[in-house]
């Protein structure tokens, strides 16, 4: 038996599957695909899996991970195909690979890349992109950050590794690298900042898409 990792995307309808529900979805999909996986012992055996860095409900993402234990000598060559044939809409597996020597540890994840879409139903207002660029270029962007230990005032810039904006017809997309894991910063704070600092440009809606995760040296994590 060895540890294996599945990299998958969670988009469209599946963006609304909560973390706990996602575990069930994956377990059932694995059962449908008859993959050789390890079940927990005991009275209520179930497929053992663990989901790294769960996405907030409503976010989509394309660099997500589930770890499990494979009981065969190697991962079946058609495992990805078999799984994708039985997935709910919006969940799709990209690769499954063994974690030699335990693989990269989930706790090594330090950054996430997000695509934030700010929607403007009447078209992107003139001046917004410049104003936003100016805003995010400031050295100090204080916000009240909520965590399990309560609220704390922090400087967003300490959590950000760059941001670029791209304007479309009725939306602006921001690509940004933000702290993840222990140093997590929700991309929603960027939207909040716009609402606070640039209320004249308040977008009609915002969506969040998780693109990539990195370690502390900004190497892609997989």
């Amino acid at each position: 038996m060895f540890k294996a990792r599945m990299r998958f995307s969670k988009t469209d309808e599946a963006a609304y599957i909560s973390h706990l529900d996602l575990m069930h979805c994956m377990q059932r999909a694995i059962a449908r695909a008859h993959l050789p996986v390890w079940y927990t012992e005991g009275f209520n055996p179930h497929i053992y899996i663990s989901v790294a860095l769960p996405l907030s409900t409503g976010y989509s993402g394309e660099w997500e991970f589930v770890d499990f234990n494979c009981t065969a000598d190697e991962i079946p060559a058609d495992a990805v195909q078999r799984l994708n044939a039985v997935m709910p809409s919006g969940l799709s597996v990209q690769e499954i690979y063994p974690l030699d020597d335990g693989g990269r540890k989930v706790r090594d994840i330090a950054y996430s890349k997000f695509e934030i879409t700010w929607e403007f139903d009447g078209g992107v207002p003139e001046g917004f992109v410049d104003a936003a660029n100016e805003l995010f270029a400031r050295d100090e962007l204080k916000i009240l950050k909520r965590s399990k230990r309560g609220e704390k005032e922090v400087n967003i810039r300490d959590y950000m590794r760059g941001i670029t904006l791209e304007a479309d017809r009725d939306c602006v997309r921001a690509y940004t690298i933000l702290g993840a894991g222990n140093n997590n910063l929700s991309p929603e704070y960027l939207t909040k900042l716009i609402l606070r600092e640039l209320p004249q440009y308040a977008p009609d809606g915002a969506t969040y898409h998780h693109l990539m995760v990195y370690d502390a040296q900004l190497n892609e994590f997989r």
Partner: protein
Amino acid sequence: MKLSRKLKRILPRVQKPARYVGGEWGSVVKDRNEVDLRFGMCFPDTYEVGMSHLGSRILYGLLNAQDGVWCERVFAPWIDMEDEMRAANIPLYGLESGDSISELDILGFTLQYELSFTNILNMLDLGGIPVYASERKGLKNLVVCGGPCAYNPEPLAPFVDAFQIGDGEEVMIEFIDLYRQAKQEGWSKDQFLRRVCHIDGVYVPSLYDVSYNDDGTVKAVTPKDGAPEFVQKRIVQDLDNMYYPEYFVVPSTDIVFDRAMVELFRGCPRGCRFCQAGHTYRPLRKKSVETLLRQAEAVLEHSGYEEISLSSLSTSDYSQLPELADKLLDFCESRRVSLSLPSLRADSFSLELMERVQKVRKSGLTFAAEAGSQRLRDVINKNLTAEDLLNACTYAFKGGWNNVKLYFMMGLPTETNEDFDEMAQLCRDIAYCWKCNTPNKARGVRITASASCFVPKPQTPFQWDAQVTKEELDEKTAYLRTVMKTKNVTFRWHDSDTSYLEAVFARGDRRTADALYTAWKSGCKMDGWDQCFDYNKWLDAFHMCGLDPAFYANRQRPLDEVFPWDHIGCGTSKEHLKREWERSRRAEPTPSCLETCAGCGAVSLMKGCACHV
């Protein structure tokens, strides 16, 4: 379904958004341009409740198995979602296409309980569809209802175009075939209704006039335009060859019963006199062990579910249960699937089986005793003695179980305080039985006695009986609380307001539809949910419509009264129900169908075949 920007914007703000987006494994998506009939399988309650309903799953599979037919699921959004949808101008939509339900040809509602009736109106309204049948002029958006409450369809009569009475599998296909013909040939809605009422088991309420006596009771129900005088329910005679879905929609979010299910048999041999299902699912028909194993395997294989349950009204009465259980358990163990067996009786075989099946959950053992004394159990024909119960408890306690739940009803016909004294005694006896038999006194025992209010249901032997008034019920509860004072016994009782409303609509006539409409207009919905139920709004609604709810709920009806549902057949004859009522007043039990046929009449619906489980 494709999620619109508008919808995506509100989803993050509502509780459990996964229930509003579809896309689950097993959901069926077809090309809307390649079907000629679009059907909405509507369940007038939340996703979690509706997705747990086996009947809807069967019909969903059946309809989608037809070429050219696309069946979608529609549920009532929870109030937070409804508010957001109304504010954003998003109509109620089918979970497969995301299209407004107003684009669907037929909307089929499942009627599981009376307290979901307002949700039907609310769902239609959310879809931008007029709630009154008379205001829906075209063939499109035809509203059809089926399910247990269709055995008294009258409170919904003005809202519904047609009811399907009884087993849906066959009548549904005949119904949609005629609809497709109507659509193709451009019939008017009237033309269609006048034709469809001749399909056996279809009731078109607009083709019947109801007249009333001075005292408010029904005088006569008169068919017009050639509609049949009596609509007998439909049954599927051969369950082995009946359609059964080989796949289930597997929800991506938690629901009430999240597991695979197979149905053992239809009908119940017991004939408890308060039980509507027991009298309306007859005659008795079963599936063979081979069929069940094949269907269980198919459903598990396709769904990936980790649990399967056997569904029936009385699982212990399935004659080949030992054989089935053995084979199923072998199969389940090899797949690491757990088996759950609801509706078992208090006999030793069932307990042994339960022990084999639920190795882990030694906590919960439930018995539906229904009444506290033998006399009252004879009145209601609940074939269970104190001795049976104590034997079962002895066995269970010896085996280490330490949690027993007992279900009782309050307000049963002929009930007195003496019956409650005996109920308390029974609980004491069970507590004592635990003391004598448990291997581990230190762990303690939990005995819970829950009492709910009896609701007289149409098409049962107790359809003539009055529900006790709120005042009487309060007295009964107060008395029970004084006698149910045994250590280790917790007594719980249900609030009576919802039972009162249930009683009104269970045996209501067409006039109660006004109150339903008025209550809904004043904001009543999700009445089955405590946090939404507003009793006073309902009382106001009855008052505004000049209706006395007590007339429907609390009146002892004479044996010769014409009932609003007398023209709807449930298989069991009214003569049999009357006989059963008379026996009940003599506290005379009627043997189970497994011993002898009581002549309920339902077997006449089967051609050349007898009742069997």
